[in-house]
Structure formats: C-alpha cells, structure tokens
C-alpha cells in the first residue's frame, strides 16, 4: 500500500499550477518540435534547461519529459500527412501512415496513433511505476566494481547500437569521457587539461556541448538544405473517426508495441528509434497479410508509434534507478537534475521519493493532456509543419545563443556551443553518432570514480572483479554481445541483428 500512498502524494504535488503548467508547456512544445522536421527532442530539452532552473527539480523533470513524450506524439503527424518524419522515431510511420493518408484515411491514422500512444504511454508509466522502485532497491547493492562493469556493458551496447560503424560510436564515447575529465578532478583536486585557465578549472559545461551538437549542428544542416514546401492535407474533426475494422486491427499491435517498446527502452542507444523498427518488423512478420505493409496497413502505423512512446518510459528506468542515462534525452535530464543538486540513482527512492512519485503522477496527467491536445488540434499542428525554416531557424539560433549565455552569464560557453555545433555538423555528415558523445560526457565522472575505487578496493588486482557475481554477469553479457557481433557475418542472415524494415524511404 505504501506505493499507492506515495503515488497519491505524487498526484497532490503534481496538481499544483506550476507543475501542471510545466507539464502542459512541455507537452505542447514537444508536440510542436515533433511536428517540425529538423530540431529534435534532445536539442529542445537542452534548450529548455535554462528555463527549468527557475523552478524545482520535479518541475524541470516534468517539463523535459513532457517535451520528449510530446515529440513522440507529434512526430507521427508529419509522417502521416506529408511523408516527412518530424523526428527519427517517426521514420517508420511514413511507410504505412502516408499510404493511409493517400487513401483518405489520414484522420483515422492520426486518431489511432494518438489513442495508441496514450495506451502505450500509460502502460509505460505503469511499468516504470512498478519496476523502478524494485530495481532501485536492487541497485543499492551495487558497489564500484558493479558500476564499472555496468558502464563497460553500456558502452559496448551503445557503440554498437548507435551506428552502423561501432568504432565511430566507441570513438565518440571516448571523446565524451575525455571532455568530462577537463577541469579539477574532485577525487584528488588535481587540475587536468586546464592550461592555467580559470574558466577551464570549472570544467566544460554539459549544456553548451549538448546544444551545440544537437541544436546548432542541426540548424546548420537545415540552413544548407534546399527547402521544398510540403503539401498538407486538411483534416477535419469528423475525419478522425476510425472504422470498426481499423480499431479491431489496432488493438493487438498497440499492446504488443507497448510491451516491446518498454523493454527496448531499457537498452542503451537510440531506443525510441530502435523500438519502432523492431516493432514494425515484428508486426510484419506475424501478420496474416504481410504484403499489405507499405501500402497503408494500420498495424504498421500504430505498433511503432506505441512502441516509441513506451520506450521513453522504459529508458527512464536506468536513469532513475542507477543514475545512468542510456539515451541522449535522458542524459539531458540527468544534467538538468544535477543542476538542481538531485542525483538520480538507487538513493533517489529514499532521499527524494517525492521527486519520483510526483514525476510519475505528472506523467499520467501529461499523457491525458497530450491526447486532448493531439486529437482536436491535429489540423493546427499540420499547419505548423509548413512553417518555413527561413523563419524558424533564425529564431531558434538566437534562442540557443541567449539560452546558453543565460545559464552562467558566460561567453566562453557560447564559444563552446558554436565550436561544438560546427564540429557536430561535420560529424553528422560523416555519420558519427552524436548521442554516445553526450552520454560519455555525462557518465565520465561516474566511470572514473568507479574505475579508481575498484582499483583501490582490489589493490590493483582487477582479476578480483571475477569474484563478484553481478560484475561477472554484466561483463559476460558484454563479451557475449561482442562475440555475437563478430560472429554474425559468418552465421548468415538468420542470426543477423536486423532492426530495419525491408522498405527504404
């Protein structure tokens, strides 16, 4: 019963004007960002960090999750209406969503996606509510060797799942870890890579790096592209009614997508994107008529969209229970919580239980808000999709500049953001994954502490890590994954790790 009391208190706390407003603003901005091609939820969340500083950690967490969540809802709108995915997790939705739109079923597709996302989101929150405290308690037994082993497993999975070239992912993690080591090392107060600069003594702040890599680089990318005005079909409220047959066919894929997405969310890497590909592949594989996929099958629209919504909630579990973000948006959330002096991890449930339970309650409310927002306002969001980047990008550029400056009143941070943006632009062009870099920056201090404490505990004999059962399991998983990765080209197609659908966009 204690859980329900805490949840009840969470609802009481979340029903304040500030938290409800934060939830609404986050959901609204997230939906708009999801609708607009280009700027993704990660950049937007980074952009909103300065605003959250004026309020408490819970309000900040609610607002940022609202953005992430809203982007998952909104991303499907442009995929269905104009065949342009608003963000990466909606790429798969284009395959059947746009085909439904061409058949005059856009309204029904949007309605089914909104309801499916709501169901998946609610199931995801339920999963988070029940699993997180349980895993948090289990994580209390984690010592430095377990954390170190967990980091190694996370880095192996992250570098392999984030891009086609695992070495590029691994290099990005290494650079992220290096960047986090700049400044005074808290373990022995020794300044590293500061070259006598007072500014570098404090280290390089996370926010300008994130905004540069995810925001400025994307702005530069869009600025250099030729703009083609999309044609958007008008949607009326009465068009939103799906047929009985469409509803019947959507129920099972929604539930399957929700469960699958939640568990994929636990993996390191772009979990929301992976969840959509895996879910689409699964639906196609088990469908009675797989030939309908790619030609407007409602299952191919609702399943991936449900999966990406519950994946958001799944990926909150490692963040909240271990303090380890597995995806770029959750890395931004960790940075935001640290700005408020809240350290997520096993102790969160004992030291700051109100943060967790208020967050859970606010997510239930946010999910309802998103459903209300997305159904009647779908026509309006469709219109937002055609705002020209020539108007939008200059505005976002200036908000990025001012936003980064406002956090510490530091021009150095703005220089860092611009440099990161230009480097990020070329990294994107050469297909280097950005997310592992950001996660490396955030996890750097924890990795170093775990490594040094493990070495000191074992008096330099790292083989003693094999005496720790959990560490051995985690390391064995990392080795098994690497072995599988090396062996899979020789094992044939049947054993290949395939997450992409057959159709290419």
């Amino acid at each position, binding site marked *: 019963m204690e859980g329900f009391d805490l949840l009840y208190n969470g609802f009481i706390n979340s029903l304040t004007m500030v938290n409800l407003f934060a939830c609404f603003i986050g959901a609204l901005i997230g939906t708009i960002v999801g609708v607009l091609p280009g700027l993704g939820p990660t950049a937007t969340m980074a952009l909103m960090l300065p605003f959250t500083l004026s309020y408490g950690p819970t309000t900040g967490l609610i607002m940022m999750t609202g953005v992430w969540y809203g982007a998952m809802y909104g991303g499907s709108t442009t995929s269905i209406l104009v065949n342009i995915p608003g963000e990466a997790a909606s790429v798969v939705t284009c395959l059947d969503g746009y085909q439904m739109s061409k058949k005059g079923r856009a309204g029904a597709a949007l309605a089914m996606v909104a309801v499916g996302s709501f169901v998946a989101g609610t199931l995801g929150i339920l999963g988070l509510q029940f699993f997180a405290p349980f895993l948090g308690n289990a994580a209390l037994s984690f010592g430095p060797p377990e954390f170190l082993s967990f980091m190694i497993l996370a880095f192996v999975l992250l570098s392999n799942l984030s891009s086609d070239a695992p070495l590029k992912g691994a290099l990005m993690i290494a650079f992220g870890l290096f960047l986090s080591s700049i400044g005074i090392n808290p373990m022995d107060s020794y300044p590293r890579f500061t070259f006598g600069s007072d500014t570098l003594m404090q280290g390089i702040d996370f926010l300008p790096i994130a905004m540069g890599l995810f925001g400025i680089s994307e702005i530069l990318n869009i*600025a*250099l592209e030729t703009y083609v005005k999309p044609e958007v079909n008008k949607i009326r409220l009465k068009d939103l009614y799906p047929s009985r047959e469409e509803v019947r066919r959507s129920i099972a894929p929604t539930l399957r997508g929700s469960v699958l997405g939640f568990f994929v969310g636990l993996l390191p890497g772009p979990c929301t994107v992976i969840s959509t590909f895996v879910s689409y592949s699964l639906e196609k594989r088990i469908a009675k008529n797989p030939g309908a996929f790619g030609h407007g099958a409602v299952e191919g629209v609702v399943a991936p969209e449900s999966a990406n919504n519950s994946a958001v909630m799944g990926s909150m579990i490692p963040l909240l229970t271990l303090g380890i973000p597995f995806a770029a948006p959750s890395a931004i959330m960790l940075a935001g919580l640290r700005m408020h002096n809240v350290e997520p991890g096993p102790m969160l449930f004992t030291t700051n239980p109100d943060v967790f339970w208020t967050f859970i309650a606010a997510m239930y409310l946010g999910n309802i808000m998103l459903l209300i927002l997305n159904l009647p306002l779908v026509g309006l969001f469709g219109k937002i999709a055609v705002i020209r*980047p020539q108007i939008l990008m200059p505005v976002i550029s200036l908000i990025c500049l001012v936003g980064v400056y406002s956090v510490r009143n530091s021009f150095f941070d*703005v220089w860092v953001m*611009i440099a990161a943006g230009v480097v990020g632009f*070329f990294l994107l062009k050469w297909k280097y994954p950005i997310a592992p870099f950001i996660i490396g920056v955030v996890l750097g201090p924890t990795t170093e502490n775990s490594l040094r404490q493990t070495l000191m505990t074992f008096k330099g004999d790292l083989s003693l890590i094999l005496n720790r059962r959990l560490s051995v399991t985690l390391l064995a998983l990392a080795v098994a994954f690497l072995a599988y990765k090396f062996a899979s080209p020789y094992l044939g197609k049947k054993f290949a790790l395939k997450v992409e659908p057959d159709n290419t966009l």
Partner: protein
Amino acid sequence: MEKTSGSRLEACFVFLMFVLGVVITAISWGYGFGSLRRPGPGLYPVFIGVMICIFTLSILVSTVRSKAGGPVLDKEGAKRLLLMAGTFCLWIVAMPLLGYVVVTCLATYAFCKIMKLEGWWKPLAVSVGTTLFIYLMFDYWLYVDFPRGILG
C-alpha cells in the same frame, strides 16, 4: 573510382583526432599515472587517450581505404556555413559593445538573409519579434544580466 574530397577531408579530421589522442596520452602521463594499486590523476585520461589513438587509427585505415562519399559541401554550402558561423561569432564579439538588443536584432536579420528569406519586411518582422521575445523571456521574466553596451 577516384578518392573524393569528402573522404580526404574526413581522413584529415580523423588524423587530427589521432594526434589529439597522442597529445592527451602524453599530457596525462605527466599528471602522474600512479600505479594500479594507487591510481594517480593521470591514469584515467591515459586510458582514454590510448583508446582514442586505437579507435582513430582503425577508423583512419578504413577511411583511407574507402572510396565512397561525395563532397560534404558545395561552394554555395561552404559559403553559407561560413556566413552562419561568422554571424554566431559576431554576436558574441559585438554584444558587449552594442548591447544584446541591437546585436540580437541584427543577427536575426542576418540569419534570415543568409537563409534567403526574401524581401526586407519579413526578415525585419522576424528579427524584431525574436528580440522582443528574448527581452520578455530572458530579461523581464528570468532576470538574466545581459551586457547593455554603449547604446544602453
């Protein structure tokens, strides 16, 4: 197939990253590696530096071997990228002198023109609107202390 300027540029970039890896390792060694029993402040960055060297060397080999990949930017794209980056830099340099209101308005106008927003009133409307939004949001609401410059 001939080697493209895009992959040459990437190879140069990866080589620079390799050099950076070597520099990181060398500097970190100077901080004191310590021993595995008593790690010094340089131990962790030495590991990272060595990892960067290994990864960059492997990527460099595959980049040099690869012949795929067109140019990252054409002439027009490179010009636009430089103009965008230049405007970002000018915003920082000019802000303490002219104050954030004027500089923000001018920078937004410049971005609109670089991105080929036609006419003069649309860019003007966007820049005035953006400046007003930033004033209300950051100055009026969040009390951010911006440089006012000689124009007050």
